[in-house]
């Protein structure tokens, strides 16, 4: 893209060779216009993923710094002349494989998502299967051409299987997913057997990893009775319970969005199951939660103030209370703790309106703990935490961690919270903190010999 004289255009393409980083980055331009060197020029702007941003600059020398979601700073110097039309396309040169994020990949083709997830986890189940299939096909062709090739070494016998068809390898075992409604998992107990849950059909498989889409267009906010879980049984017997963020009403067009579920049994750390939702407006915020780093959105603070995404999402909580909680988690992580926000008080309303969403009580308690306005605020936070515990397992991983932290923090003054803190610690021991949405993990049942 050409630009008008005396300006620059900036874009960020994520990690080189990858196109799935949906998080915006922050650009800061600092420098000196010719003839006015004693008055440094400073600009800050957000560069949305995959988009270009223009900035007019007077003739002079400037330093452009891009703060990436990882915190890393990329910088270049630029000299703006009378007809400069510099276009800066930044890439993350180092660390090309930053891990796979389903939240950052939603919207792409199923095949692309599955292939990239498999590449990130090292899942070779499809390649292994195809290799075995090719071996059988090759052996069949050899046999049909007139029998086996004679051995080169004397005494070595060619082992011939007369029934090659019968020797075809079985396809890899695949996970199964059932939908459970109204479940209240106990972190101390074994995995629920799920036999009363309905099987959910998959969208696509790639080897033993698969994608599911689970729709729900219920107009009412979720309650304990309507809350949806996916019970995932992995080929090795492990069970995972994924909390489904349903119903999810998209911010930009009020359409209901299904929960997307990716199950990759080869994922070596964390949970094999990942949950995401496709929401163009909130995708960036959810992507931060999906990396387990809500605080990493800190550099976007200025942009969040000019485009009040967090404020608006919390304000419109009745449309999508789960989105309001996600926005609040990010807001509480990035805004200075001693700063009061317009939406602080709305979090209390959110808890009252949605008593069955534990995260609504957790964000309210978090706000009270971080920004106490009176001596009674911690008692109110303790009440909110009791409500959160009663409402069940938080929808968001970060909610589980904050619940535990605040129960521990407040238990010296509210001793009844100590036992709940132990429960929350056990719950935290089942989740994958690198994911946005809560997935509980259970070990495979022990074999009795």
């Amino acid at each position, binding site marked *: 893209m050409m630009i008008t004289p005396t300006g620059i255009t900036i874009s960020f393409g994520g990690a080189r060779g990858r196109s799935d980083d949906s998080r915006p980055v922050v650009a800061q331009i600092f420098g000196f216009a010719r003839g006015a060197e004693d008055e440094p020029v400073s600009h800050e702007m957000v560069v949305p993923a995959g988009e270009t941003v223009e900035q007019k600059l007077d003739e002079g020398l400037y330093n452009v710094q891009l703060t990436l979601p990882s915190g890393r700073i990329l910088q270049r110097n630029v000299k703006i002349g009378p007809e400069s039309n510099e276009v800066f396309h930044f890439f993350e040169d180092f660390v090309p494989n930053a891990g796979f994020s389903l939240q950052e990949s939603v919207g792409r083709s199923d095949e692309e998502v599955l292939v990239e997830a498999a590449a990130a986890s090292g899942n070779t189940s499809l390649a292994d299967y195809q290799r075995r299939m090719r071996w059988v096909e090759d052996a069949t062709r050899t046999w049909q051409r007139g029998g086996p090739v004679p051995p080169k070494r004397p005494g070595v016998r060619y082992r011939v299987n007369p029934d090659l068809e019968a020797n075809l390898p079985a396809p890899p075992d695949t996970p199964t997913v059932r939908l459970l409604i109204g479940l209240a998992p106990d972190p101390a107990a074994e995995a629920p057997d799920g036999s009363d849950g309905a099987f959910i059909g998959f969208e696509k498989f790639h080897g033993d990893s698969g994608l599911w889409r689970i729709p729900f267009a219920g107009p009412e906010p979720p309650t304990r009775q309507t809350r949806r879980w996916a019970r995932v049984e992995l080929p090795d017997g492990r069970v995972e319970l994924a909390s489904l963020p349903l119903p999810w009403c998209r911010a930009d067009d009020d359409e209901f969005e299904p929960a997307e579920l990716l199950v990759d049994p080869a994922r070596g750390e964390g949970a094999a199951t990942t949950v995401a939702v496709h929401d163009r407006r909130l995708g960036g915020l959810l992507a931060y939660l999906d990396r387990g780093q809500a605080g990493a959105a800190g550099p976007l603070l200025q942009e969040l103030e000019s485009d009040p995404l967090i404020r608006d999402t919390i304000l419109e909580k009745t449309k999508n209370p789960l989105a309001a909680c996600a926005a609040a988690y990010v807001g509480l992580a990035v805004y200075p703790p001693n700063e009061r926000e317009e939406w602080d008080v709305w979090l209390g309303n959110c808890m009252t309106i949605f008593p069955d969403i534990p995260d609504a009580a957790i964000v309210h308690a978090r706000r009270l703990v971080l920004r106490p306005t009176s001596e009674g605020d911690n008692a109110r936070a303790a009440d909110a935490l009791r409500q959160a515990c009663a409402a069940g397992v938080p929808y968001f991983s970060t909610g589980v961690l904050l619940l535990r932290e605040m129960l521990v923090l407040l238990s010296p003054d509210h001793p009844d919270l100590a036992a709940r803190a132990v429960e929350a*610690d056990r719950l935290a021991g089942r989740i994958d903190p690198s994911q946005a949405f809560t997935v509980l993990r259970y070990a495979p049942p022990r074999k009795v010999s």
Partner: protein
Amino acid sequence: MADPALIFSDEADRAGTHVLLIGIGDYPWLEGGAKCKTPEHHENAMGMGQLTSPPVSMRRLADWFLDGFANPDRPLASLAMLLSEKKAATYAHARAPAPAKVLPRGSIDDVKKAVAAWVKRAAGRRDNGLIFGFCGHGVQSSNPVLLCRDYGSNTESRFDGAIDFEQFRIALSTRQPDYQLLLVDACRTPDVENSLLGQATPGSRLIDGVSLTTRDNAPAMQSVEFATSLYTQSWGAENAPSLFSEALLEALASGGADRNDQWWVTTSQLHAALATYMARISQAEGLVQRPAAGQLQNFRISKPDRISVPLYVRSTEPAIWAGPLRLEARRGDLCAEEMDYVPPGDAAALQAVSECTLRLTNPSQKVADVVYEVHAKFAPNSPFADTVEQIIAYPPEVTCELPVGKRP
């Protein structure tokens, strides 16, 4: 000095910064350790062995706190250190008591006592600061678990010698000082996670939390930097600082200086500098290691006298590295930094050259002191013409892409 870990103390009645550093390299009950003898010891070791990098890293960090740390609001008030090496460790420094005393070796009991003394020293004033540094083995089990020297000594309860870092952090946030910086350089691999699903994280919290009413009902400001992201490894070379420590020392010294906060090294800019330096350092080693911020509340750490910026000189024409050249970074009429580049002898090493590094130290951050001209002067028989490029040198690092043309 009743605390055996204490190596520096300033008793002045003013706000100060209290530092505790723990470097665990010798693990007697892990692979290669003097007491790793039974099958249970080997099993509990989970492949972990002896380290040499943590004590080196913590010594270097202690040197920096005694020589380079400059915080006029909260100067260094105390520095304590625990080191686990093959032999009992001492630490000598001009500002430390002489003769150098033997330091505690970092068993869980040593750590508990040192933490208690450190917290007590800092408790006198709300406006004090705390800095905690740990370098050694670690695993992830819901929370980060940091392994002390005696991890595995009790084969029936191996995590008796370990710290539940998250519970420690939460308890610490209920304590007095308002500003708490925690630096954790340890692996966060999920070695034990699957075997502990649904269980409380093992390890000691070291201290109890107290009522938040002692802190006007709000927890302390905390900033937590992990050397590596969740479920990944942290690396260090033999008998040298860890990769994270290298980056940390550079970032603390001035790389994390914040343009928007009068060039103080702040916690948020420290994270940016760490992420920037670690990308380069780990890439050079062929590794992937990304630091991660656990909590990121912004406050000031140190105000460097001088700001030093690494300058990476590259070129649009990679062939320039095949011949000798002279690089100069000029500030006005002054040659601030120079180097004579000589290409390496063997072809493989030459192929790996893509940039040269100079270090620029700005006398101040005013315009005249941060704008440099980078000159490249080629040998008379070089096909390339001399060239110059103007740059602004701000931390954490600056790159200069030289536009190179052929001689007519």
